[in-house]
């Protein structure tokens, strides 16, 4: 039962990250590694406001999410947009995003140091017992928040005109442009929504397991792996991808050792790319068909 609860908590975070990443991928059409910084910056700015500036935690959280979104918009405006106008290829965009990640992650290290920090001021207490297993308050909040945010993200994508524009640009940018849909606006909206979700994920992760400047990279890549396993398309495939990844990671931690979690994630990822390159969805993707 404890294993199931652990899987549920990880799955919740993974689905949130997977959705966040796939939203940005839909708009930008490349793997934005710099997105990992939204996750990290949101948790560090929560630490800044709630601990260092002694602001209320409830005020610190929305400000931090806002900061995370602003950071990605600035990066989009001054780095990604000019590069895309110069028609650079996707791998070059990925390398540029890697450069953005390296610069910002080290800037965070310079400001706050490399040690683990925590914004937890609430008292440590025993978790709630559920059928013999334990779950903490933070983990319950994580599961509920992730469910709510994923629902909100999907509602936005499916039921609003902006969401439909993002999907149109993602599906066929040329046709979308003919129909008068601005690609730039769609990219901005997908960036706002995606980085907002990533910022929330960062704060939830830091609330449970504290923060280091490199925390965003691994979690972001797990989100990418969930997205690739699920394949591009409907949310249900993303759910399948996140569930498979979370289950495999916790089973490997249970039967082998927790230190094999990262390797397990990438073994599954590479196996999928080899045997089922389009993931669960089966929707063909140009980059995996040669």
């Amino acid at each position: 039962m404890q294993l199931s609860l652990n899987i549920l908590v990880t799955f919740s975070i993974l689905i949130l990250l997977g959705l966040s990443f796939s939203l940005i991928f839909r708009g930008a059409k490349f793997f934005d590694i710099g997105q990992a910084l939204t996750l990290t910056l949101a948790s560090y700015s929560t630490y800044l406001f709630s601990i260092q500036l002694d602001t209320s935690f409830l005020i610190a959280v929305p400000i931090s999410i806002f900061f995370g979104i602003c950071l990605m918009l600035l990066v989009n405006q001054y780095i990604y947009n000019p590069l895309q106008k110069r028609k650079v290829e996707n791998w070059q965009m990925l390398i540029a995003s890697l450069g953005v990640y390296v610069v910002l992650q080290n800037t965070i290290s310079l400001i706050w140091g490399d040690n683990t920090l925590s914004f937890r001021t609430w008292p440590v207490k025993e978790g709630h017992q559920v059928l013999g297993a334990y779950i903490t308050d933070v983990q319950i909040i994580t599961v509920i928040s992730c469910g709510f945010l994923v629902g909100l993200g999907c509602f936005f994508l499916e039921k609003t005109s902006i969401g439909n524009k993002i999907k149109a640009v993602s599906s066929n940018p040329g046709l979308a442009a003919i129909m008068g849909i601005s690609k730039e606006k769609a990219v901005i909206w997908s960036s706002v929504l995606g980085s907002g979700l990533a910022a929330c994920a960062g704060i939830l992760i830091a609330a449970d397991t504290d923060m280091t400047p490199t925390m965003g990279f691994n979690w972001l890549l797990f989100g990418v792996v969930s997205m690739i396993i699920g394949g591009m398309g409907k949310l249900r495939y993303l759910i399948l991808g996140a569930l498979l990844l979370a289950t495999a990671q916790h089973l490997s931690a249970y039967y082998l050792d927790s230190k094999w979690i990262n390797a397990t994630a990438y073994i599954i990822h590479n196996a999928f790319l080899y045997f089922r390159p389009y993931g669960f969805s089966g929707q063909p993707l140009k980059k995996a068909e040669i």
Partner: protein
Amino acid sequence: MDYILHLGILICIYTILAQSLSLVAGYSGQISLAQAGFYGIGAYLSALLTVNFGFSVLVTLPLAMILSGIIAYVVSKVAVKTVDDYYIIITLGIQVEIFSVMNNWQEVTRGPLGIPGIPSFSSFGFEFDSKVSYLLLSIFFAGLVWFVLHNLTKSPFGRVLRGLSEDEVYTKSLGKNVGSYKVISFVISGMLASIAGVLYAHYISYIDPTSFTIDESIFILSIVIIGGMRNLQGIFFAATFLVLLPEALRFVGMPSSVAANMRQVIYGIALILVIFRMGVNKSKTLRNANV
């Protein structure tokens, strides 16, 4: 003086790593983030065989190249099915897997404790235990790799690699098996990277997994991108610049803890600027083509 020689040895090691990566990244158009993994395979295999079984480096060096080649073959068979940024992500995954094995398979690799007491490089009764002799040895290997890559890239094989990186479908239409060319270039690149690993292990005499992380792969890729994707000489200068950069930061009085981060900030900015430069060149090419 010893410190200058030490920097010279590091420049040779990074030149080998970056030039070998350029065969894959520059010539065949496959950007790999797994180079530090092959570097680590060479270092670990040679260290384990010399420390535990008393093998000579003359035996461990070809064995390290063969093992790296085999692993590179398996990896490229998987990775070759993807292109572009998917290829980068898959090689990133391979890098994480190789690092996990080095860090977690403690029965063999001793995990984070690392392998101490690695003997110095010796061949035919001569011990390369002084800095000067090791620098000469490193220059020899760096020169050899440079010579091999220079000739390889000028050969018909190199021309096919250039062709497939420019237009894969067109190269395929000429009857070339692009998949096998990609695999071969990746295998050669992995094998050459393992030479740098062997040199590093027998020079430092202690290795642990932190020398072969994803950060190291990003650093090697930065050297290639900053030096010029298909420019072996430029890569040598970029390796020199990036290896000497922390020393320059030390001279301006920056504490080493800050200098480490500053060095990464500077090469991150350099990466972004080089991509901008590539974009400018591409725009000019497109404009000229339209005229």
